[in-house]
């Protein structure tokens, strides 16, 4: 059997861990720059607050119902996510981390799978205060279906095991086809147009038709719904093919200086991520844009892609090329809203192929090693490349940020 463990309203639940007075109250978390709603507690959902709703339009509603509003605190969410995954790893021999708040669990060969799953759920809740729902079934796709029931039906107590053929048929008959894992928006509307409304309708289609019209992905999905596992747990996270660091600025930038500083910081972040997964990149892209939502403003956006002469993961090297690229696309006289740095053609450090005449400078990797070591010990970005600066003009707005309770000595919970 496979379990899918999903954290309920994860970001909103994280905010409650260190402020239990938020329990039972409507809580929403806003996206970067406090722009849109990206997480809602059940109480906030009950008020009709929609996902991705614009925060400024909701201010009156927030006031009226005393909704607690937070900037997204990804440092805190990331730490609590790790903790949830660590608990799961204690209980299941294999865990596939699917996203920040979801993981598949190998629950094969247990005599009492439901009882065991309830113990897992309790361990997560007691260790972290994060409520989770766990759906269990023969395949990942069915576990997703079971998870939805576990979350929506209070009688389940957060755990639902979907095992008998009758129960599966019954569950699929009320499950919208568009909500199936991997169906996507496009297939969803095409299937509905053909009168295939539920997951059961989809499962009953002729396999030949599914294969012809939806390819191997559709075929797999149909077999998974029949209880044949086609998607094994993916235990090793493949290295990312592209790494991007990009933000909207906290305010419009008209000066080149803070834009340079921002891009340098994005490049440094990307370089750090490359080093962390022991990879290097060959290609770097820099992009820059104004605010398209402000129609009264003059609009401009551009990007540039550079191929590095030698693959690298050095912050100094990548910042150098990012600056080169930025200078080529930067035009004075615009109000800039967003920029970013993206690297691609990523390969492992060990496969670094040196050009014959332009071998990479071994001193770079030494400097980076020392820098990462110092930052690991004394805190993120304590040592940085000069170009990154210390300016705050470009920083994202996070006016309602909670503390990083678990990752910063200066922000521990205070008890009296």
């Amino acid at each position, binding site marked *: 059997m496979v379990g899918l463990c999903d954290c309920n309203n994860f970001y909103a639940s994280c905010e409650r861990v260190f402020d*239990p*007075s938020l329990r039972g109250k409507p809580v929403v978390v806003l996206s970067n720059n406090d722009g849109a709603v990206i997480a809602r507690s059940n109480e906030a959902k009950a008020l009709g607050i929609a996902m991705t709703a614009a925060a400024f339009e909701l201010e009156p509603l927030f006031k009226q119902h005393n909704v607690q509003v937070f900037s997204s605190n990804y440092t805190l969410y990331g730490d609590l996510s*790790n*903790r*949830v*995954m*660590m*608990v799961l*790893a*204690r209980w299941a*021999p*294999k*865990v*596939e*981390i699917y996203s920040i708040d979801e993981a598949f669990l190998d629950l094969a060969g247990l005599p009492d799978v439901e009882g065991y799953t309830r113990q897992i759920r309790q*361990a997560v809740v*007691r*260790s*972290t*205060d994060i409520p989770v729902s766990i759906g269990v079934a023969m395949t990942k796709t069915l576990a997703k279906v079971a998870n939805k029931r576990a979350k929506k039906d209070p009688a389940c107590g957060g755990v639902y095991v979907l095992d008998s053929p009758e129960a599966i048929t019954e569950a699929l008959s009320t499950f919208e086809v568009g909500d199936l894992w991997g169906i996507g928006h496009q297939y969803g509307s095409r299937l509905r147009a053909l009168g295939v409304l539920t997951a059961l309708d989809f499962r009953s289609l002729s396999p030949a038709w599914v294969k012809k019209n939806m390819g191997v992905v559709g075929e797999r999905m149909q077999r998974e719904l029949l209880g044949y596992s086609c998607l094994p747990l993916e*235990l*090793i*996270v493949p290295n990312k093919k592209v790494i991007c660091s990009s933000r909207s600025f906290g305010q419009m930038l008209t000066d080149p200086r803070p834009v340079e500083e921002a891009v340098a910081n994005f490049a440094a972040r990307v370089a750090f991520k490359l080093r962390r997964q022991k990879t290097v990149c060959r290609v770097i892209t820099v992009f820059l844009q104004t605010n398209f939502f402000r129609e009264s403003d003059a609009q401009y956006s551009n990007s540039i892609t550079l191929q590095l002469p030698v693959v690298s993961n050095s912050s100094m090297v990548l910042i150098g090329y990012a600056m080169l690229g930025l200078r080529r696309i930067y035009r004075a006289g615009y109000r800039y809203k967003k920029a970013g740095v993206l690297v691609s053609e990523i390969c492992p450090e060990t496969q670094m192929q040196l050009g014959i005449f332009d071998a990479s400078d071994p001193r770079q990797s030494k400097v980076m090693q020392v820098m990462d070591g110092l930052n690991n*010990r004394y805190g993120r970005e304590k040592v940085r490349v000069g170009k990154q600066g210390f300016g705050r003009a470009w920083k994202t707005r996070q006016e309602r940020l909670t503390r990083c*309770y*678990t990752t910063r000595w200066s922000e*521990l*919970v*205070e*008890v*009296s």
Partner: protein
Amino acid sequence: MRNTIANLELFRVDPDTTEVVPLLGLPIMAGFPSPADDFVEAVLDLNKELVRFPESTFLGRVKGDSLRDLDIEAGDVLVVDKLLRPDLSAVRETLQKKPGYRRKPQLIVCWLDGGFTVKMVKLFPTRCLLYSANEAYPPIIVTAENEFILWGVVTYVIKKTY
């Protein structure tokens, strides 16, 4: 390195480790074992000593002097484990200083009406009492009217002594 000074054993402490729990069953690099491996002296890991369950352990910092008699002062760091079940039976005996009673009182981090507080907790059928360790702070009576949560159990107190 291990020295013996009087009755005190000193071990070298490696502050640089972070405990890593095997998470994904990633393959462990198998290379040639170092010939020195068999001779490495014990290096003590404070994380392992102080943190039994990393996933449920949180740190807190003490404010105020309500635990003065237990030598817990403002600025001390508390290691708090949420997974451990609070033991609420040891309080009275400790407070009454029964002869021969050696158990340490369990300190519990509680959420009380909008703030965290660390106290010794005694449960009664309809209410519970929160004890400080300083006569200036009388016990707090908690009833169903209060917003009250037993948040975690203090497992270590870390203090600076110089």
